[in-house]
């Protein structure tokens, strides 16, 4: 099955989103080869440049509202547990407008893969400050410089209960492919925060190239070590920026537990069962 659609791509040339698109397509093709039909994949997106992914991949998709990618993803997973649900969201989408859903999806450890296109700017609305923009960031809504400190989304989802936490970089496609596949195969809530360069509103290529390194000799099962590594860079000050999987553990996933608790319907038609229920109310 061809993964391309008829839609014309309208990201800027050089946009970091292309790397994510290519990684996802490559992984979907690979998974298909390994027996996961694209029929059993649903892509969910919020609103932002990131969500255009859905128009560009010929797979089932739910193009949701700004900030609201995770709730429908959870509904889909609970309705059809065999589905691989992959969510594309932005730093504004996931960490701003949709923060409560992020915290709760992580808390539930529902088996969903969340890929955040973290360009640290509101790209679609042409360049305002976001929850991961650094202090002092001059944007169209903070011409005098951002007064707030950014949040560290990895630390946040670790505290909330995510069981797979990684950071990628749009200029490292081989790693990104590996990360996307690993996250999709993980049973539980996984976040990949992708440092996705926005060439138009926040071009951080040089900055990232100077600071990124791949995690080595790091044990992702060690929560303390994970937290320490996650805190190495606070998305604000200059520091080494680790790429790779910080944390990974297997814990009961919400969807699996939910379905375990779900009973098959009692014998009899619904009208019959309703008559039975009504007997308790006389």
């Amino acid at each position, binding site marked *: 099955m061809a993964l391309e659609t008829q839609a014309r791509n309208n990201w800027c040339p050089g946009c970091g989103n292309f790397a994510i698109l290519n990684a996802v397509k490559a992984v979907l093709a690979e998974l298909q080869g390994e027996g996961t039909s694209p029929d059993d994949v649903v892509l969910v997106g919020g609103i932002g440049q990131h969500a255009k992914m859905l128009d560009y991949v010929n797979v089932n*998709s739910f193009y949701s509202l700004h900030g609201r990618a995770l*709730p429908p993803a959870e509904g889909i997973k609970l309705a059809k547990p065999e589905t691989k649900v992959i969510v594309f969201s932005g730093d504004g989408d996931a960490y701003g407008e949709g923060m409560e*859903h992020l915290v709760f999806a992580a808390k539930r450890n529902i088996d969903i893969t969340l890929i955040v296109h973290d360009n640290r700017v509101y790209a679609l609305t042409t360049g305002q400050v976001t929850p991961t923009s650094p202090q002092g960031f001059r944007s169209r809504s903070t011409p005098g410089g951002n007064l707030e400190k950014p949040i560290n989304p990895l630390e946040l989802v670790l505290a909330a209960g995510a069981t797979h936490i990684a950071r990628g970089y749009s200029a490292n496609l081989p790693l990104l492919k590996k990360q996307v596949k690993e996250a999709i195969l993980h049973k539980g809530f996984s976040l990949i925060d992708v440092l996705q360069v926005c060439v138009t509103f926040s071009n951080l290529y040089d900055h990232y190239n100077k600071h990124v390194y791949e995690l080595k000799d790091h044990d992702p099962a060690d929560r303390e070590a994970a937290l320490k590594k996650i805190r190495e860079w606070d998305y604000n000050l200059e520091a080494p920026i680790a790429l790779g999987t910080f944390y990974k553990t297997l814990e009961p996933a919400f969807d699996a537990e939910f379905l375990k608790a779900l009973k098959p319907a009692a014998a009899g038609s619904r009208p019959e069962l309703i008559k039975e229920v009504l007997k308790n109310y006389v």
Partner: protein
Amino acid sequence: MDNFSILIGGQAGYGIDKAGLILARLFNQLGYRVYIYRDYPSLIRGGHTFSIVRASKERICAHRNKVDFLLALNQETIDLHKNKLKAKGIAIYDSDVVKADGLGLPIGQIIKEENAPEISRNTCLIGAFAKAAGIDWPAFEAAIKQNMPKELEINLKVGKRGFDGARETVKIEKVNQPPLPILTGNEALSLGLIAAGLQAYVAYPMTPSSAILSFMAEAADKFSLKVLQPEGEIGVIMTALGFSYAGTKAAVGTSGGGFCLMTEGVSFAGMAELPIVIIVGQRTGPSTGLPTYTGQTELHFVLNAGQGEFPRLMVAPGDPEEAYYWGALALNLAWQFQIPAFILTDKTMAEGGFNFDLNSIKEVKEAALPKRAFPGDKGAVVKINSYEHDGSGLTTEDAAITKQMAEKRLRKGNDLAEELEKYESVKVYGNNNASTAILCWGSNKGVCVEAARKFGYKVIQPLVLSPFPVKQFEAAIKGVKKLICVENNSTGQLAQLIKLNGYSADQLILKYDGRPFDLDELEGELKKWL
């Protein structure tokens, strides 16, 4: 006595609600039709709570403000309600804590002697009532056995002490009529949705709809329902729409405040053409308002909620049978037309207790899934989109497609209106030849129908509010010279809706203090406009 009322009151936490339900079930078993009005504050403990249980040989859906028995577990109940007691009525009370005229029993003392828990004072009180009302012990004993299986022995003991300590004042006779289940509007509505094949219920608690969530959670095992309580109402509606996209029939329930948060999801459902049932249980607003009291203030809010233009079904059932029937139909029609469908209730209906006659309801068969692809179908790519989109679900800003899609949505609205002609979307009661008619919606139906009988009026109740059932309304209003609109709001929202459709009400009778009309009060209001 073939039509009587009992008011039972005390502090929140005294088991007033339970005691009221037991009385209602007792009369039900004796062959009466019953109605329970529940009045309680937004508190767990403390504050004044009371129930009015009304029984009649005929079906009733409203309470009266004069009562035959006043049952008091504290002084406040007497002080607040003694003016409701009829001249020949009798107060029954715990003389250890209450000063009043009537039949006092040292209930506190009895409880101590029996080593019974505080909470069983209510059983002692209704035991005394049973004797005073001439109900024989076996009938009362059966009611306790049925309703208090947990602490049965001690409740029977305490109930018997109450019974023996009182004297017969009147004789409530048995009626030769089989009992019917007693349901709240919430319960009936839940069962209607289940009857039509509901598979998932998603909600965040909010009075007066919280009990639907509990009911569904309790019923989940029997009916294999997926019941979920997400992080808030935005999460609720968007999760439910995820279910819907995947082919799982879902409903959500809330009140006005929670519905405010859902509106972006409503518009999304309109654009993406995803079926969903949304229950809005109205309470006194604006804002947090009076959480446990009633109102009919969301008609225009729900009618207009969500940006953009898209068709919606909106129904307002007036009693539990209608809640069951229209709940089932709403789910079916949502799926048939791929639209959001709203069910408006209010606290009066949602939490009131009513007899429910399943046999009187036309059967609604579960609708088949529409002939469209769902994710997971072999070889199908199902793309839905909050942006305007082409037939394959891809985003578009093309002018011609935009216009086409808008017209497609309009067409669905027209088709829906046509489909609704098959159903009784406007109901008429009372004297069909009367030139004066009462216009009402939702829970006011019960009190209006009963009041109209006295005046020989006709009653017109639009059950469907969107799309407005123009033809059926025209037929109903024919020959009416004076139209009196009765509503629980301060602006006459239904009156405004009919005005938009070219009709006008001649008089408005409005009540907006959080309490529903009682029969005597409405009759008094109607008299003013004779």
